[in-house]
């Protein structure tokens, strides 16, 4: 199923057709718009002689089902079957301009002309049939598109037949007789949505699925002021783009820069994504934001214009005279639309015109924006609207369309731009924070003295980003009067004043479901509850005393009854068991929206039931009974569905949601940092519909959200006796209020310490300096003609290949993506950078002219053929133990490879290590040449393992700590753990920090599969080691396991039980909503790591058992979070993504601290985690 996009001109050119038209209207939006051309006509309805019925509406379906509901209206009035009606929605080239799809207006407002058009068409078709049949029109009726006499009989004409040869063109009439509700057969029925079968089978085309011939893929790179859209720096913060940083990447077509707009275009999507990640862009630092952790003061300090919307009675006098004054402050946090799919668009900018395929909520305003951006008239621009991920207000759909237009214009081809999750989270216009202050109180007789309400709402239209980034439009933050939605309390308070402080945004913000009405109602409905409690009156009864709208009264009574509302005059604090208490809360709202005074959508009322754990602060919304009066319900099933969605989303907002900010930008850039409600948290929802078929249909897209937060806060009050005036009601906040304890803040970053590497290097400079003068200089071994590979037996070469794998030759001697063993890979050591040599038999740059004697000397003594000393980053101290036959086989294999010409860069070593002859002294101290000798006291298998591990396997090169001169320590330090390339190679001995000591079985599993259930997954430099070990026979792997296990600590009697216990303890300790770390773990890690998570492809490493989580330093954990496991050791392990671009240093540190505390509870907390993250982020290493 793809979007129908017929061209009206084509339709109108046909005969055998009927069309209902209306002069195109000039819709004025929030930005200036061009009036339509003189004489332009909009088409609303089209019927033809093939039976086609198309209906046109300028609004779009945001996943709310209006495509189905509008089709029901048309089918009803036209008297055709529902499945005959094709809805054409929201394309600038084909549908009427009916403004943006906002304020739940599609059914309530924009469907009105459509209903009239369908009725008018029916009247016309019946009139034509009357003529043809020579029967009075009044004697005819229509059934499924066939006009026939009411009296029955065979006579009848289908619409198709009536239209044969005709071109009926009618102008939409202002007054048309529409059907009486009593005749409805389709409207008012529960209808399945027309789009769901295609969506459930993958045949529905979203905007993400639009493919245009010749299309390229784009990604954008956004500035560091993420989510901020006002100030002089907007559009002027770019210092420079280093295009050479992506020059070598495959598929890159262009880097496009305009002001602060930066984008890349590539042939393939993953190439564009990689180029965007790698592109080096330098920005000026972003200026600081106001302190958004203190929203009340940030909002009070923001300059505002004051509008008094209502002032009845004498508020000041009544407030002053109140017997029980009650002044209250309510705070609403910044929240996200959080569309589940990041926005996407395709644009094709050509000399002939511009086509944009967009998921926009506002096709016509978007067209105006694109015109402004490109400097083109609106009439050469066509916006083709495709469905996208649900939006609920305003996400980045328009932004990405403009991005695509800029990139397409730059490259002269169609470009598809997909935003990243991080960009969507960071840059979407947020639902604004809001501050509601009430001054009022009760008189001595319990009546309400005064209600002096003020609200501060910093929102705007969120100008399409590219207009700001390119400097096309100044970032001057226009102030919109949108804080007034539902700002008038619904209660008949005698002395009431309502004041709105209109203000510019603090961060990029726009309307989010319920706009300012949800926060305003949170205040109204919390306060009325507080009044009821103070007056000692049941909250529902108190509301009814002040509520005089009969439909509201009916609704409130009905919902209270259906919910089993329990009468109370104060918080009941009913104990369920232990620390768990239960409560029930009420709230009501008529969602009044649009320009003040606005008008109402559907009425809504909630009874929320909660259970609160007073010890932990956990709030569980167990059940919501929600009633709604939507007037005539076009599709009751659709309304019920919308109510469910509103209840779940607004419960999520009330319990969990709050955007976090760094000092300069939005910090929540993925689902961990911005958790939303999950399946286990979804309450039981009971919907109470109020059928009013004779009343006009009312918008249902937002109303049921509006009472949510107050109902939940009121329920928490009933359960605990404590009033919460600032969502989200997270456990840490609730616990703090209930117990008086405040959670410790996340530690601040420490100052950087001087690297111990630097100190070690300085100390060593002198140590070796003097000792070397008398050392012998080794001679060159004469070059030979490269040996003929056919001189070696196939068996020998095959054996050599295995040994090369054991020795991991290719791991160090290959650059990523390069020719195997051709060298050039940089090896960072504490003493400088060395580059692995070319091990292919190339005569000039490789080892082609090396004799076996030269090779053997290198392997056993660390001397190059030409007599130069090699650095012990090349583990000849281990290789020296290899047998002659093994070295000969290895030589045979290396000499049989295809030669690759690849010069090796010079090592960059610090003094004194840059003096290669000094290595002679080093060798004298630390090199013990000679082949391994078997230990007769040990088994042959153990000895075989020792030979493999100590020799070519060179495990100790990484796993044994090195002394100050870079040599492996010996004795008890053997295999006691070391550092390599910024990764910790954990101890393999009894010094291992692993909670369950290594056993032969676990070692075997780890070396063979890359995974040990009791220790974790091979990652970093160990992943390629396991990949190489795959070439070795089982017997050798087993021997290595036997040997290594002999160093391990004593195994617990029942490791499986211990593992299960550790995991169960950790799982029980998890607190997913208490801290940033907990949220990040739950959102980013738990799907793949939680013990009870879903069965997913790959292994499920248990963090409670993971060696890295129990290590003395956090390096490996930090590294794997930052960089993931890009190349897993084995294909069954699954892949771990990198969070480098999704989490900032503070977030990674919080996550690491949480994982440490929860999964290694007996280990001490790590120090300076934040600086470790910063250090490792800037030194990604070579693995």
């Amino acid at each position, binding site marked *: 199923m793809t979007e129908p996009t017929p061209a009206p001109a084509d339709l109108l050119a046909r005969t055998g057709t009927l069309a209902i038209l209306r002069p195109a209207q000039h819709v004025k939006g929030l930005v200036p718009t061009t009036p339509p051309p003189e004489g332009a006509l909009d088409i609303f309805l089209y019927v033809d002689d093939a039976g086609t019925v198309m209906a046109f509406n300028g609004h779009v379906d945001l*996943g709310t089902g209006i495509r189905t509901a509008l089709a029901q209206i048309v089918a009803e009035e036209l008297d055709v079957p529902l499945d005959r009606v094709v809805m054409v929605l929201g394309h600038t080239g084909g549908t009427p301009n009916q403004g943006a799809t906002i304020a739940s207006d599609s059914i309530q407002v924009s469907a009105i002309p459509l209903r009239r058009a369908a009725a008018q068409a029916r009247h016309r078709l019946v009139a034509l049939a009357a003529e043809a049949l020579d029967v009075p029109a009044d004697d005819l009726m229509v059934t499924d598109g066939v006009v026939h006499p009411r009296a029955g009989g065979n006579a009848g004409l289908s619409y198709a037949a009536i239209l044969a040869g005709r071109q009926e063109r009618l102008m939409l009439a202002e007054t048309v007789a529409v059907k009486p509700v009593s005749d409805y057969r389709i409207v008012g029925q529960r209808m399945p949505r027309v789009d769901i079968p295609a969506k459930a089978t993958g045949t529905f*085309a979203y905007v993400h699925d639009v493919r245009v011939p010749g299309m390229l893929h784009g990604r954008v790179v956004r500035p560091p002021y993420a989510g901020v859209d006002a100030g002089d720096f907007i559009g002027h913060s770019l210092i420079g783009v280093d295009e050479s940083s992506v020059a070598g990447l495959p598929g890159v077509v262009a880097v496009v820069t305009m002001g602060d707009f930066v984008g890349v275009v590539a042939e393939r999507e993953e190439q564009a994504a990689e180029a965007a990640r790698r592109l080096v862009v330098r920005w000026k630092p972003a200026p600081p934001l106001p302190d958004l952790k203190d929203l009340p003061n940030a909002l009070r300090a923001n300059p505002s214009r004051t509008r008094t919307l209502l002032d009845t009675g004498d508020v000041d006098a009544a407030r002053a005279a109140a017997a029980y004054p009650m002044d209250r402050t309510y705070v609403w946090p910044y929240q996200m639309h959080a*569309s*589940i799919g990041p926005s996407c668009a395709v644009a094709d900018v050509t000399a002939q015109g511009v086509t944009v395929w967009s998921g926009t909520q506002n096709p016509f305003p978007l067209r105006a924006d694109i015109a402004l951006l490109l400097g083109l008239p609106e009439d050469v621009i066509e916006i083709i609207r495709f469905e996208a991920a649900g939006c609920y207000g305003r996400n980045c759909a328009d932004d990405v369309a403009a991005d695509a237009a800029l990139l397409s214009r730059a490259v002269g081809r169609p470009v598809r731009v997909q935003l990243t999750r991080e960009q969507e989270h960071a840059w979407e216009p947020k639902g604004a924070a809001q501050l509601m202050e009430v001054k009022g109180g009760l008189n001595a007789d319990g009546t309400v003295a005064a209600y002096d309400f003020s609200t501060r709402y910093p929102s705007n239209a969120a100008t399409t980003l590219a207009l700001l980034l390119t400097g096309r439009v100044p970032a001057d933050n226009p102030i919109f009067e949108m804080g007034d939605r539902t700002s008038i309390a619904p209660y008949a308070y005698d002395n009431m004043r309502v004041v709105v402080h209109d203000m510019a945004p603090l961060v990029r913000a726009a309307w989010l479901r319920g706009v300012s009405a949800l926060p305003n109602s949170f205040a109204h409905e919390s306060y009325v509850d507080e009044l009821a409690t103070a007056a000692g009156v049941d909250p529902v009864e108190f509301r009814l005393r002040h509520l005089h709208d009969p439909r509201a009264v009916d609704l409130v009574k009905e919902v209270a009854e259906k919910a089993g509302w329990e009468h109370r005059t104060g918080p009941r604090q009913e104990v369920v068991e232990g620390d768990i208490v239960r409560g029930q809360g009420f709230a009501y709202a008529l969602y009044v929206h649009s320009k003040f005074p606005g008008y109402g959508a559907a009425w809504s009322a909630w009874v929320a039931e909660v259970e609160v754990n007073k010890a932990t602060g956990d709030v569980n919304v167990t059940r919501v009974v929600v009633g709604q009066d939507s007037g005539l319900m076009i599709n009751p099933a659709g309304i019920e569905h919308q109510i469910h969605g509103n209840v779940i989303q607004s419960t999520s907002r009330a319990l969990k949601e709050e955007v976090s900010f760094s000092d300069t930008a939005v910090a929540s850039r993925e689902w961990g940092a911005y958790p939303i409600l999950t*399946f286990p948290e*979804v309450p039981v929802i009971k919907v109470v519909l109020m059928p009013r078929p004779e009343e006009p249909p009312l918008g249902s897209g937002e109303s049921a959200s509006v009472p949510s937060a107050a109902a939940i806060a009121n329920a928490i009050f009933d359960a605990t006796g404590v009033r919460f005036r600032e969502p989200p009601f997270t456990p840490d906040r609730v616990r703090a209020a209930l117990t008086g304890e405040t959670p410790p803040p996340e530690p601040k970053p420490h100052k950087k310490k001087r690297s111990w590497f630097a100190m070690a290097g300085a100390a060593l400079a002198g140590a070796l300096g003097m000792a070397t003068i008398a050392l012998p200089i080794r001679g060159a071994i004469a070059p030979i003609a490269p040996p003929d590979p056919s001189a070696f037996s196939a068996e020998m070469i095959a054996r050599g290949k295995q040994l090369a794998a054991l020795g991991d030759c290719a791991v160090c001697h290959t650059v990523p993506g390069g020719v195997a063993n051709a060298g050039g890979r940089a090896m960072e050591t504490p003493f400088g950078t060395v580059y692995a040599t070319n091990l292919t038999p190339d005569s000039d740059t490789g080892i082609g002219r090396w004799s076996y004697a030269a090779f053997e000397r290198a392997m056993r003594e660390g001397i190059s053929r030409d007599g130069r000393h090699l650095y012990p980053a090349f583990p000849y101290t281990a290789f020296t133990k290899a047998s002659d036959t093994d070295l000969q086989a290895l030589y045979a294999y290396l000499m049989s490879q295809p030669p690759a010409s690849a010069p090796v860069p010079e090592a960059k070593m610090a003094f004194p290590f840059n003096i290669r002859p000094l290595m002679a002294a080093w060798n004298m101290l630390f090199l013990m040449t000679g082949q391994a000798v078997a230990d007769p006291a040990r088994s042959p298998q153990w000895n075989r393992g020792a030979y493999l591990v100590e020799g070519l396997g060179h495990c100790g090169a990484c796993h044994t700590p090195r002394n100050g001169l870079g040599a492996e320590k010996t004795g008890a330090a053997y295999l006691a753990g070391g550092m390599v390339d910024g990764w910790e190679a954990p101890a393999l001995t009894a010094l291992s920090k692993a909670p369950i000591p290594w056993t032969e079985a676990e070692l075997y599993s780890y070396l063979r599969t890359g995974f040990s259930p009791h220790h974790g997954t091979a990652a970093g430099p160990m992943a390629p080691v396991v990949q190489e070990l795959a070439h070795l026979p089982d017997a050798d792997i087993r021997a290595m396991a036997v040997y290594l296990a002999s160093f391990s600590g004593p195994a617990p009697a029942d490791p499986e039980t211990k593992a299960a216990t550790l995991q169960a303890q950790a799982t029980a300790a998890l607190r997913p909503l208490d801290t940033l770390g907990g949220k990040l773990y739950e959102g980013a890690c738990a799907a793949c790591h939680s013990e009870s*998570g879903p069965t997913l492809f790959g292994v499920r490493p248990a963090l409670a058992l993971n060696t890295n989580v129990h290590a003395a330093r956090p390096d490996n954990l930090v590294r794997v979070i930052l960089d993931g496991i890009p190349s897993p050791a084995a294909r069954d392990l699954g892949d771990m993504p990198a969070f480098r671009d999704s989490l900032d240093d503070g977030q990674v540190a919080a996550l690491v601290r949480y994982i440490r505390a929860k999964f290694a509870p007996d280990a001490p907390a790590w120090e300076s985690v934040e600086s470790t993250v910063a250090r490792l982020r800037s030194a990604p290493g070579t693995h």
Partner: protein
Amino acid sequence: MPDPVTLTVNGTDHTFTLPRETPLIYILRNDLALNGPKFGCGLGECGACTVLLDGVAARSCVVTLGSAEGRAVTTLEGLGTPEAPHPVQVAFIAEQAAQCGYCLNGMIMATTSFLMRHPAPTEAEARDALRYNLCRCGTHVEILRAVMRAAQEMGGAPDQGAAETDLAP
């Protein structure tokens, strides 16, 4: 030039000469024009991109071509068609378990994988199974009904009886 990698997608073998670290989702969507898997986060957090890999749910935004080599990949399209939908798809359509529908692919694929392993789940188990599949529109109630309906119609779940469950309308 990378070595060619072969995998089976919805029953047909395909060979790609692409880097092994290429995320599977781009290959399915862009090379094979399969629209079922949706890009949601690129981090394996939300589940919108879920496919089956040898019959196990896998998040195709993090699974690489290399990990998928030699395996059978099933996408939403391979599960069933509009004409012959899979029972899980039938249940989701019957329960109208979509609003915008962007998460729907992940919900259906995760449910399919889940029911293969737990043919008769309780509702609480179904909730846990979908805990890490995110939906923003709030279609959870309909989705859970669809899971339970699919289980029943596939012969797994016992009738829930008259007891008030979370899913009763």
